[in-house]
C-alpha cells in the first residue's frame, strides 16, 4: 500500500503518497520540524512507471493533482528529489492565493529581499547563505506575493543545493541539517538543506518587500538599475500564475514594480555577492 506523509510549508499543505518506504523516510527526517496538517491542498504521488518497476530497476514517476504529461521518471535513490519536484509542480500549476514568483527571498529588519533570475544564477545558494548570515530565510524557489497586502509570504521548503552551492553550505551547517548527496540527477549533484529553526518556526510571518535583485554568479562585479517597466516584463516571465490570477495579478504586480527598487548584480564568488547585497540593503531604508 501507499506510504503517506503530510507536510505544511508556509501556506500550502501537501499529502505525499509513495509506493516505497524510502523516500517517505527521507522526507520524514528532513521535514521533522514542519507542522503536520490534517487538511491538504495537494496530493503528490510517487509511483512505479509500471507495476513491476516497483522492484526491478525501480524508477519513480512523479504525479499528483497537477501533472506534466511528459515528465521523465527518476531512479528510486533520487526519490527525495522526485517528491520535491512533485510539490513544486503543484504550486506552479495550482496555487491561486498569491502571485507566485520564481524567486528566492530572505528577511532582515522586518523587510524582505527578493532575488530572481534564470536557473543557475545562484539565487538558491544566495538565499541559503543569507539564511546563515543574519537573515531569515523565506524561500529559495517561490516568493509568494500577497494579492491584498503586497507582502512576501514565506515558502521555506528544503533548499535544493546544487553543485558548488553544496560545498559553500557544507562548511557552515552541521550534517544533521543536510540530506544525502544525490549524484547524477538531471540537474547535477543535489543536496538538500533544512532551513534554520527560526525560518521554520516563523513560516507564517510575511514581510513587505524592500528590494528585488537579479543576481548573476560568475561575472565581474557590477550593479545596474532595472527600470520598473523592465521589471514588470521580467516578473511576468518569472511567474507561473500571473495570467491565471487575472486582474488581481495585474494589480499586485504593478504595485510591486512601482514601489520596489530593482537592481541587477554580477559577482564572482558568494562572499562578494553577500557584500553587494549588504551595500544595497543599506541604501534603501
Amino acid at each position, binding site marked *: 500500500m501507499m506510504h503517506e506523509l503530510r507536510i505544511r510549508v508556509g501556506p500550502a499543505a501537501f*499529502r505525499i503518497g509513495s509506493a516505497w518506504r524510502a523516500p517517505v523516510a527521507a522526507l520524514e527526517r528532513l521535514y521533522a520540524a514542519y507542522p503536520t496538517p490534517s487538511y*491538504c*491542498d495537494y*496530493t503528490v*504521488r510517487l509511483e512505479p512507471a509500471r507495476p513491476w518497476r516497483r522492484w526491478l530497476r525501480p524508477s519513480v514517476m512523479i504525479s499528483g*493533482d*497537477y501533472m506534466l504529461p511528459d515528465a521523465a521518471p527518476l531512479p528510486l535513490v533520487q526519490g527525495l528529489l522526485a517528491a520535491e519536484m512533485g510539490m513544486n509542480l503543484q504550486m506552479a500549476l495550482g496555487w*491561486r492565493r498569491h502571485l507566485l514568483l520564481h524567486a528566492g527571498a530572505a528577511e532582515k529588519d522586518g523587510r524582505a529581499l527578493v532575488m530572481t533570475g534564470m536557473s543557475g544564477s545562484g539565487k538558491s545558494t544566495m538565499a541559503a547563505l543569507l539564511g546563515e548570515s543574519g537573515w531569515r530565510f523565506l524561500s529559495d524557489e517561490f516568493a509568494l506575493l500577497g494579492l491584498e497586502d503586497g507582502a512576501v509570504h514565506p515558502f521555506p521548503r528544503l533548499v535544493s543545493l546544487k553543485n558548488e552551492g553544496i560545498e559553500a553550505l557544507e562548511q557552515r551547517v552541521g550534517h544533521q541539517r543536510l540530506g544525502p548527496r544525490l549524484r547524477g540527477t538531471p540537474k547535477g549533484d543535489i543536496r538538500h538543506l533544512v532551513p534554520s529553526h527560526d525560518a521554520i518556526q516563523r513560516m507564517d510571518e510575511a514581510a513587505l518587500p524592500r528590494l528585488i535583485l537579479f543576481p548573476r554568479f560568475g561575472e565581474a562585479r557590477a550593479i545596474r538599475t532595472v527600470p520598473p517597466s523592465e521589471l514588470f516584463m521580467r516578473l511576468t516571465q518569472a511567474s507561473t500564475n500571473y*495570467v491565471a490570477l487575472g486582474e488581481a495579478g495585474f494589480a499586485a504586480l504593478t504595485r510591486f514594480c512601482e514601489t520596489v527598487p530593482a537592481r541587477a548584480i554580477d559577482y564572482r564568488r558568494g562572499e562578494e555577492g553577500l557584500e553587494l547585497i549588504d551595500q544595497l540593503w543599506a541604501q534603501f531604508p
Partner: protein
Amino acid sequence: MTPIRRLAATLRDPRLAGSFGARQWNALIAVARAERLIGALAVRLEGRGLPVEVEAVLADARRSSEQERRAALWEADCCRRALKDYHGKAVLLKGTAYVAANMDAGAGRSIGDLDILVAEKDLDEVEKALLAAGWEWVKEDAYDDQYYRRWMHELPPLIHRERDRMIDVHHTILPRTARPSPDPAAMLASAIALQPDAQQKGVRLAKFSSWHGLHVLSPADMVCHAIAHLFADGEMEGGLRNLWDIDRMLREFAGSANFWDALAVRARRHQLLSHVRRALRLSERIYGTPVDEKLRGHNSRMDNLFEARLMARDGWGRQTRPLLRLAFTIRGHAMRMPPAMLARHLWTKWRRS
C-alpha cells in the same frame, strides 16, 4: 463509500459535505481534480461554511474556472472575428458553448480547446480564414494529417501562434467511420444563434461586437452530442464529468415543453437512441437526474459495467481496474473504426514508434 462515489453523491446533494472529516476531504479533492470536476464541485459547495482549509481549496478552484471561462469566451470571440466574412453557421460545441449560452453545465466547468462545427462543404473556406487570422497547423506528420482528414470528424488541430490556444474544427460530431452516424446537416440547420445582448441567456458583449454567425446546438442536439461524446469518443476517459454535463442539461432543459419528445426524435435521427437511453439511466443512477420513464428504457446488465468504468478511481486520484479500462479502450477504438481499418491504423502507429 469510496471517494469517487462520495464525489458523485456530493455533486448530487451538497448537504452531505457538512459531515466529512479531513481524510475524506483530502481524498475527495484529489478525486475531483483527477476527474476535472473540482470547479463544478466548488460552485456546488459555495457558501456552505466548510472548514477554512477546504474553503481555500474551493475558492482556488472557482478562481481557476472563472479564468478558464474568460479565456474560452475570448477565444470564441477571436474565432468570431476571424470568421467575420464567413456566411455559414459556426456552432460552438462543448464547454465553450455551455458558458457562452450561460448554462448550468458551464458553472465551474474546465474548458480546454475551442471546438466548432461548420458545414463540411465550407471546411476549406473556414480553414483559410483561420490561417489568415494567425492560426497554424500543429506539427503533424503526413500520415496523421491524412488520417484526420479522411477518417476523423475534424480538421487536424490548429493552434494560434500568439495566444497558444487550440481550435478543433469539426464537420460532424463523430468520426465518419463510427457506427452511429449523427446527421450534422440537421444539427447545423437547427442550431441557434447566440443573442448578442441578452443578460440572462448568452454572453454579455461589448456593444461593437455582434455574434454574427456564432451559434450553439439546439437543446436536444446538445444533449445528443454530449452523449455521443461520453460513449463513442475514445475510452470514456473523464466520463464522470461528461455525465455531469448531461445531468445539468437534462435538468435545465426538462422544464421546456416537449423536450423529452424532441430528444427522442433527435436521438433516432442521429442513430444515438440506445446511447441516449443508457446515458439517461446512468445519469439517473449516479446523479439522481429526473428522466423520462419511457425514454430511459429498462436497466441492462451492461449498465453496471459502465458504472464501474466511470467509478474506476481511488482516493489518491489513481485510475483503478486496468482490465476494465482496457476493455473500454478496445471498445472505444472499435466503435470509431471498422476492424480492418483499426488494424491498419495500429500497424502504422507501431511501425513508426
